[in-house]
């Protein structure tokens, strides 16, 4: 029982420190990325934590949506903070370009509405 508590604690500490490792910039020394000059968020600590959450969220949603597990890591790694936030909030509803064929469907629906409202008369037998 004691060991398991100790384990839990060390896992917690390790995971927090790993999160922190991930947040460090890639550049050496204290050169800041040019993106730091453009980002306007003043609470960067908060942003970093939110980004970690967004990353986990996007990863989970992608797997749920049928993306191959092997590809998920690579796709998530490519995204910057802003993109991660966007996807995390909007992945289910954002426009997903897929096919041009549905145009016929749209025309059909419009015709059907016009038909039902009696404006046109092309579907009925004469």
């Amino acid at each position: 029982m004691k060991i398991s508590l100790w384990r839990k604690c060390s896992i917690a500490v390790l995971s927090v420190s790993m999160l922190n490792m991930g947040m460090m910039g890639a550049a050496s020394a204290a050169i800041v990325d040019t993106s730091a000059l453009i980002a306007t968020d003043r609470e960067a600590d908060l942003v970093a934590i939110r980004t970690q959450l967004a990353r986990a969220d996007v990863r989970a949603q992608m797997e749920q949506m049928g993306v191959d597990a092997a590809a998920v890591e690579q796709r998530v790694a490519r995204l910057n903070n802003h993109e991660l936030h966007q996807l995390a909030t909007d992945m289910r509803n954002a426009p997903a370009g897929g096919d041009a064929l549905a145009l016929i469907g749209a025309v059909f629906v419009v015709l059907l509405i016009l038909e039902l409202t009696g404006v046109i008369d092309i579907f009925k037998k004469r």
Partner: protein
Amino acid sequence: MAKRAALATACFAIFFCVLLSGCVARGPMISARSTELEQTPFFPQKRFQCGPAAMATVLVASGISTSAEALESSLYIPARRGSLQVEMLATPRGFSRLALPLPRNPASIIAELEAGRPVLVLHNYGLPFWPRWHYAVVVGYDPVDDVFVLRSGGKRRQLMRSRRFMIAWHYGGRWAMVVLRPGETAALDDAQSFLEAAAHFEKVASPADSHATFAAAVRRWPGEPVAYVGRGTAEYRLGNLPAAAHDYARALQLDSAQAGARNNLAQTLVDLRCPHRALAMFEGRDLDSLPAPLRDASIETLRGAQAAAAVTDDAAHCESFP
């Protein structure tokens, strides 16, 4: 009674359609010249795979060797039966290319075509409340017939009346992007969005690609401090510290409040064995009021400079630095 209700509905439907199409009324036509990028490759799409096909089209046109099939695993989302704009913009970065979203007007599409770059657009062929999204690539525009030329779906050369193009584009949120090589800037004069895209690119780009990108920005927009900071950081990563110092200093000249440029210049001066000069950069500056990443980096740089200054004088060559 029922008939009257039906008539009212019909009137409303027609009124609604007219109203909607009114929103996208054609506007002033955009170019007198006819353009068509005939060399643009074509990747006929498989079912639901217009995202990878359109992306392959613009990437290959920009000199990358890839295919629609190769891009499927990084763009397609099975449950959505399509590809998302965010991932479309993120993909070129993995191929040493910059993705740039365009301003939401047709003039920007034409300008990019005239600069020789095909434009990836999102169309909506359904209705605003019943969308059917589709990615296509614009490769030409003909002002005489008023048609756009597209690589789209299974059609190598689809001609689309500009009115229809504009309606589908408008319902698609007027979203368009181009792929730029390192060293290219966009056709239209929009420094802010270019520098933003370049800053995202910097995080994954090689120092040489990053240098080419920001050097082009410096040439195009010599008054933009962020362009100099980007080029300076590329110089720093390439090991050209004196050149980096000069770029950061130029950025500070243009905007003395540019804390990122100040921090990077100070750090470069420390690396050049000029810690006293570096310390002078921070004199009278309130670091605590900076946004967090700049504050933390500046405090770290300041501490490093203090530690170095305590044990050594500035090297003789420091006179030549700003």
